[in-house]
């Protein structure tokens, strides 16, 4: 026999390059690069530092929430409440700081709120067996309503003694002229990527999405992990809310409205599979970036803004179409 059993077992199925070529995320990156090249060539205003600063900063809010959403989607769940949770956390931060408390207390209150909301979602889903869609749809309504209650549906734009610090946190650029939110996004993406790839927790998140029953039988603590995942999703919305508050300098009760759909779109374009088991942190960022570039470029190219939805929707369908085509080939 020419090939021994040892050699067969040691053999890698595919090279690093072919694995990259087969991933949806890779092709979305290519699409982004091509779009950027085209836009730099076709317009004068795209490749300016001011426009790039704007794009990178705009990407961050959807991208940060998409990181948490990607974890939820990998477990086979969905979190529709993120837009409302973002609003609630922003409002809690704003109201607490407006009342004269320091920024530390304000942020702690906002983060605490996010974790409580996430734990509530998670416990209902993991321990009481509610469908994620229903629980988080309920929370979508509850969280926004609570934000209105907390602020009496007013706009908050004065943040007490630490007002300037909050605005600098979200609106500043402390590091080589890169907008602060972008730095937070990069740090959070690296943490998420590390957790998914290198920790037991991350491995179990994928296992739950792949086959929940199998995960349970092999001793994976399925329910605590699911609760944790919904808490992380709400936390990511809370963090995005805090940063967005600092950037905007004002909070209304309609920030983050409809954001859940953009976030889910970003995760899906970046390769997360709504059936569970597949998704990456890098994909979430890339998906959010593609959406923002589409939006930005339509403006620069002078195309009517009403077309935005068509192009973004088209990107979602294209990304998933790619995945389908690949599956058809494998099934043949």
């Amino acid at each position, binding site marked *: 026999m020419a090939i021994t*059993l*040892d050699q*067969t*077992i*040691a*053999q*890698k*199925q595919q090279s690093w390059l072919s694995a990259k070529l087969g991933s949806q995320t890779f092709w979305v990156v290519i699409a982004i690069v091509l779009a950027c090249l085209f836009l730099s060539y076709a317009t004068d205003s795209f490749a300016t530092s001011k426009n790039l600063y704007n794009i990178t900063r705009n990407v961050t809010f959807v991208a940060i929430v998409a990181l948490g959403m990607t974890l939820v989607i990998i477990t086979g769940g969905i979190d529709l409440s993120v837009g409302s949770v973002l609003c609630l956390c922003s409002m809690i931060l704003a109201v607490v700081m407006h009342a004269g408390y320091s920024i530390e207390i304000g942020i702690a209150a906002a983060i605490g709120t996010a974790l409580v909301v996430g734990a509530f979602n998670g416990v209902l889903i993991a321990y009481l067996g509610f469908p994620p869609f229903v629980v988080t749809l309920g929370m979508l309504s509850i969280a926004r309503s609570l934000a209105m209650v907390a602020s009496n549906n007013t706009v908050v734009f004065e943040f007490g003694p630490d007002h300037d610090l909050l605005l600098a946190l979200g609106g500043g650029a402390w590091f080589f002229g890169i907008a602060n939110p972008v730095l937070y996004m990069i740090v959070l993406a690296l943490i998420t990527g590390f957790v998914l*790839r*290198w*920790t*037991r927790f991350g*491995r*179990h998140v*994928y*296992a739950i*999405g*792949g*086959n929940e*029953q*199998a*995960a349970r*039988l*092999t*001793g*994976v603590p399925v329910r605590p992990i699911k609760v944790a995942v919904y808490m992380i999703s709400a936390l990511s919305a809370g963090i995005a809310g805090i940063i967005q508050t600092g950037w905007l300098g004002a909070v209304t009760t309609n920030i983050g409205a409809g954001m859940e759909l953009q976030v889910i779109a970003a995760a899906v374009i970046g390769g997360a599979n709504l059936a569970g*088991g*597949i998704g990456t942190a890098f994909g979430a960022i890339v998906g959010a970036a593609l959406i923002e570039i589409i939006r930005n470029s339509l403006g620069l190219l002078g195309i009517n803004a009403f077309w935005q939805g068509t192009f973004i929707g088209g990107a979602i369908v294209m990304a998933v179409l790619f995945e389908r085509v690949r599956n058809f080939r*494998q099934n043949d």
Partner: protein
Amino acid sequence: MAVLELVNISKHFGAIQAVNDVSFSLEPGEVVGLMGDNGAGKSTLVKMIAGNFRPSEGRLKMDGSEIVLHRPVEARRHGIEIVHQDLALCNNLTAAANVFLGRELRRGIGPFQVLDYAAMYRRAGEIFNELKSETRPRDLVKQMSGGQRQAVAIARTRLSDAKIVLMDEPTAAISVRQVAEVLNLIRLLRDQGIAIVLISHRMPDVFTVADRVIVMRRGQKVADKKIADSSPEEVTGLITGAIERV
């Protein structure tokens, strides 16, 4: 000495008597075929050995001393491993990831532990080699044949020093060639002194690989004899009730 002994085990769910006063023992390196029609109590019996259910009455003994199992993890700690009927595999993970699922190897200092991919690939490869299975640790389970999937599920039982392996319908729904592979795997485990309980509907498999056959009907043990002293016809009669008891 018997590695596992069941003494007058019964299990009822409310008014339903699923297992009724069953006793048997398992010797190291012995393959026992557990047969019976659907609802005869095979699965309930196995789930009690695996720690999924607690017996209503009776005792379990391992190596002569009594054990009480509350959860599957405790059974595993005693050296009882299970290959589940649907294999309990995650298609989206690699073979090595599935083998180590719930028992991942890690490296690092103190609380800073990361998954040790290299060690898991290496160990999984060693186990597949030992099982003489052409299964690559880095392949996704999604792309594997039925026989390879069985090898992954069986490889899990080789991580710890298992004394007893319970196999629930390991040859259901796979091809003829793969059945032969699985039966070889069972022989390999047996040769290492592991006691195996093979639950199966397939008469030829049990008669090929088992040393002894236990037949269950309506929660009771109706036969427990050496394969050499029995025949497929007799076992069929015992399963259906044409033969009352031997």
